[in-house]
């Protein structure tokens, strides 16, 4: 047997199923969002790192011009501070699938695929290890080159030899940037195949794992020691790299994603808390009269609170039971989506206990805390006041809003034939506390939604800015420097070419004041004041001038690596093995890699390359992408015919696609978040507004009793819903500006070391308006329609 008060709890839950479902749904969507984001954030940050650790990632990589042998590997392995060493041969070649076009490919030759020690490559499909005279392709790269296992490809080697081979299978190589992002496919061959290629036996890439792999400085010192050792042995080292401890290949992007997920997760938490507060507040307002009755028959505050807290806890508990499995699925789907974009497999998508705890805390504690204010508001008044239908005994205060909405001021309403409009406007502001709470919740949901769109728009605008420098359509990289006059003349011979320019790019390093070396820097040397390369977006200082000698503009991505560099500083760059002094005159927008710019004349002079160029830039007479593509291919063909060896020919459209692909991971996440938040905001809004309407079922009865038709009643509520939705949209639009500005700054700082180019998304603004108006109207109409179906007697008896 159960006390009557507990029957009330159960019957309250069961008697108004619509209300119960709406409340549970409102709480559930909030919990779902919080759980999904918290778990996905954990999976991505921890599980991806675990998956990455399986390949035993290198702390640093050193490439040599001359091949080295296993004796050198052994000598490095015996050095103090070295935990493990492995080596492979890397070849940059060109590839053609069936009768397609030539594209770049990086091919690795490994001695023993089964016993790799560092940057391990795993089999995916087909043969493994690669059979003789056959090639394996990285699994993501297979789509990039539009090939399938079993297809035949032709490879053009640096030694000009052509080899036709079969794709025998695919591999999974987590140490490389995914091919869809950097545009370069990766292939894997055996050392026997290397001989068949006509290449000299030996390695040219040394992969080192440091004992102190977590200590960035110690890793850098170790790599420098190994480089010294290699140079003493006569090897020329064009490039060496060190990784941030435990850092994945796309760590900048991952960090930006984790940051965004963290911030959006907090906002979703905040949003769901307000949804819950709003929902519980609506419920208690609805039960005000019953609270009064219970007080009248002797119930104490504690007894009433216990009843309602039990009710609230039940809502939270059911919402939790639904939200937890849904959020596990959501988190795993989101993580799998992100992991596939990063080219990772997440075998064990462990949901952390903390995620459950957050959901339990939000699901149970927030509703309880949320009940405190409405409880105090309802319990403070006397039993007589609580039971008074029209609140005659409370002390109403006339405020500015009420004054403005009084009959004398709503002058426009006097001239409308729709008295319902007047009723809707006044109803909107009748319960200002509730209105504020609803508005706050909707405003927050809208602001986050618009912010997500704004970050996306800012990312795209940033890509535009990044591309602003490229005033050309096709870029042709040559295998070695050619006479500038010759290559430009040959380019002019190709139909469709409107302008020709050239520049050079040199691998460089900064020599810091303490003689330590920086990561590799790409030093571009465009023609200044003429030619096709315009100024990149400058954040600080200025772009190069024709009269500049040793001036250099550094990218924000270089500043991220070398944060001590300031405008006006004199820095030392090691170019082609020699140290040169440069003065920093500006900081430009950069992306992905550390870059610097200096004048073409000066760079060629200091590197003894005057009159030579390594890169040809072409502007076409028609900007249509297909036309540009055709001109690019024609240039490649013509250069081959005249004996100019090409390393790569790229159209700017391809470059843009690659930049967009890099941002694409973030924009995919943002779209997922936008949908999630629209769901939370939308369903929450529907729940809250529907409860608001249900609360006024008696009013619907009165309207119908005095002759209002169903459609007339519905309009009162639809207009009220739209008024609230519209008001919240205005506030959302305003609040979205600071939120999205802060988020795009943080995203930009994580990605490119500088805030993104902020672009407020008008699309996001209008999409949210459409959503909020539709949802407001629906959320008001559906319950009003339900109430209209009751008889007047039933409605007036409604509690």
């Amino acid at each position, binding site marked *: *047997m*159960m*006390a*009557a*008060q507990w*029957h*009330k709890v159960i*019957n*309250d839950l069961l*008697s108004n199923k619509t209300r119960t479902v709406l409340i549970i749904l409102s709480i559930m969507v909030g919990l779902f969002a919080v759980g999904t984001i918290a778990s996905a954030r954990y999976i991505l940050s921890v599980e991806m790192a675990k998956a990455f650790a399986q390949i035993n990632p290198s702390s640093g990589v050193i490439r040599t011009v001359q091949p080295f042998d296993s004796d050198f590997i052994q000598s490095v392995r015996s050095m103090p501070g070295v935990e493990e060493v492995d080596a492979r041969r890397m070849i940059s070649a060109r590839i053609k699938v069936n009768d397609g076009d030539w594209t770049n490919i990086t091919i690795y030759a490994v001695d023993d695929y089964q016993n790799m020690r560092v940057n391990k490559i795993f089999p995916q499909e087909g043969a493994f290890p690669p059979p003789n005279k056959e090639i394996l392709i990285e699994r993501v790269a297979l789509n990039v080159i539009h090939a399938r296992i079993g297809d035949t490809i032709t490879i053009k080697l640096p030694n000009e030899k052509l080899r036709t081979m079969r794709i025998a299978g695919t591999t999974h190589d987590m140490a490389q940037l995914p091919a869809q992002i950097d545009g370069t496919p990766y292939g894997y061959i055996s050392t026997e195949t290397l001989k068949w290629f006509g290449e000299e036996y030996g390695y040219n890439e040394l992969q080192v794992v440091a004992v102190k792999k977590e200590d960035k400085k110690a890793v850098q010192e170790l790599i420098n020691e190994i480089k010294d050792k290699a140079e003493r042995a006569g090897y020329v080292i064009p490039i060496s790299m060190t990784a941030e401890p435990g850092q994945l290949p796309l760590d900048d992007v991952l960090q930006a994603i984790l940051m965004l997920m963290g911030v959006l997760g907090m906002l979703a938490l905040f949003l769901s808390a307000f949804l819950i507060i709003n929902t519980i507040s609506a419920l208690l307002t609805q039960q005000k*009269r*019953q609270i*009064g*009755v*219970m*007080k*009248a*028959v*002797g*119930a*104490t*505050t504690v*007894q009433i609170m216990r009843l309602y807290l039990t009710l609230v806890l039940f809502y939270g508990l059911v919402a939790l039971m639904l939200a937890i499995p849904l959020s596990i699925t959501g988190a795993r789907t989101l993580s799998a989506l992100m992991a596939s974009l990063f080219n990772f497999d997440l075998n064990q998508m462990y949901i952390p206990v903390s995620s459950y705890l957050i959901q339990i805390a939000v699901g149970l504690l927030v509703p309880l805390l949320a009940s405190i204010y409405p409880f105090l508001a309802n319990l403070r008044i*006397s*039993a*007589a*006041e609580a*039971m008074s239908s029209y609140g*005659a*005994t409370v*002390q*109403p205060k*006339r405020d500015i809003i009420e004054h403005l909405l009084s009959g004398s001021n709503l002058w426009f309403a006097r001239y409308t034939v729709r008295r319902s409009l007047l009723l809707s406007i006044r109803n909107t502001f009748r319960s200002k506390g509730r209105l504020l709470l609803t508005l706050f919740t909707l405003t927050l949901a809208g602001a986050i939604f618009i912010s997500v769109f704004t970050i996306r728009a800012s990312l795209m605008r940033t890509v535009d800015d990044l591309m602003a420098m490229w005033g050309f359509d096709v870029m042709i990289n040559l295998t070695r420097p050619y006479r500038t006059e010759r290559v430009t003349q040959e380019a002019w011979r190709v139909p469709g070419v409107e302008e020709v320019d050239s520049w050079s790019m040199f691998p460089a390093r900064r020599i810091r004041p303490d003689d330590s070396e920086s990561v590799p820097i790409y030093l571009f040397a465009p023609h200044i004041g003429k030619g096709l390369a315009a100024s990149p977006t400058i954040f600080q200082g200025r772009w190069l001038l024709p009269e500049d000698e040793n001036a250099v503009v550094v990218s924000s991505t270089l500043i991220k690596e070398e944060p001590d560099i300031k405008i006006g500083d004199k820095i030392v760059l090691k170019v082609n093995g020699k140290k040169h002094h440069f003065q920093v005159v500006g900081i430009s927008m950069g992306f992905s890699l550390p870059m610097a710019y200096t004048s073409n004349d000066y760079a060629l002079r200091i590197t003894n390359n005057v009159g030579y160029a390594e890169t040809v830039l072409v502007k076409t007479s028609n900007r249509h992408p297909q036309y540009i593509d055709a001109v690019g291919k024609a240039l490649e063909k013509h250069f081959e015919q005249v004996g100019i060896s090409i390393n790569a020919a790229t159209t700017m459209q391809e470059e843009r696609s690659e930049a967009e692909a890099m941002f694409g991971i973030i924009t995919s996440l943002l779209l997922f978040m936008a949908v999630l938040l629209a769901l939370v905001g939308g369903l929450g809004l529907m729940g809250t507004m529907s409860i608001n309407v249900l609360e006024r079922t008696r009013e619907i009865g009165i309207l119908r009793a005095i002759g209002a038709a169903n459609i007339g009643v519905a309009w009162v509520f639809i207009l009220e819903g739209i008024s609230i939705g519209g008001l919240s949209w205005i506030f959302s639009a305003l609040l979205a500006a600071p939120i999205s500005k802060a988020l795009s700054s943080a995203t930009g700082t994580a990605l490119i070391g500088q805030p993104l180019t902020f672009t407020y998304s008008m699309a996001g603004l209008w999409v949210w308006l459409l959503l909020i108006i539709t949802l407001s109207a629906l959320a008001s109409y559906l319950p009003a329609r339900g109430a209209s179906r009751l008889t007047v007697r039933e409605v007036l*008896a409604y*509690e």
Partner: protein
Amino acid sequence: MKTNHLQLQSPLIRLRQVVKKYNGIAGEVTALKGINLELHSGEFIVITGKSGAGKTTLINMITGLDRLTSGEIWVEDVPVHQLNPEQAARWRGRHIGVVFQSFELLPTLTLVQNVMLPMDFARQGTLKERRERAMFLLEQMGIAEHAHKPPSAISGGQQQRVAIARAMANDPPILAADEPTGSLDSVTADSVLQVFEHLAANGKTVIVVTHDEDTARIASRHIVLADGEMIREAEDGK
């Protein structure tokens, strides 16, 4: 004489200079203007007056449903005017049963559960005893066969009987009813008033507020209010 006999005892309820003011949109309204009144145990008091006379306010003051602006209300030795809402609820649960014009039964509880509710709050007896008492009271009111129905399934008169049964749940010495027949037809209203009469005859102090002067005929004492003041007092239905 019954009334004279009652008046020899010390009063059960004493009101001294009771004033209640409200602040409304139109400014301050004085609903009760210094009421002095003594009510005795076993009396059946009917308070009448026109709309706005202060009848409901007076009964809300006596039952502790609302707080007075100034003055004193004593029920036996309890200074009701000094009770905070919490203490008032606890005290009311055991000492006063309240009946409202619109019954105010909780719609999500059955009739028997509605009657059990005050016993739950006052923690009276075991659950079995509460149920038995609730059924006993419903039987007394002649509606035991509907005990497991929701309030919406019975007529207004029956609902008011359930409300009286609920008011009697903790066997309080005082029963206060605000317009208990206001929502009922005359035949049903008479039957409800008979219940009150019967309760008064059994020693309960019954206070009924109504705008219907005819109700006074069954009362042992009739008080008339106008503009927040007591303008007439009569005994034995006069």
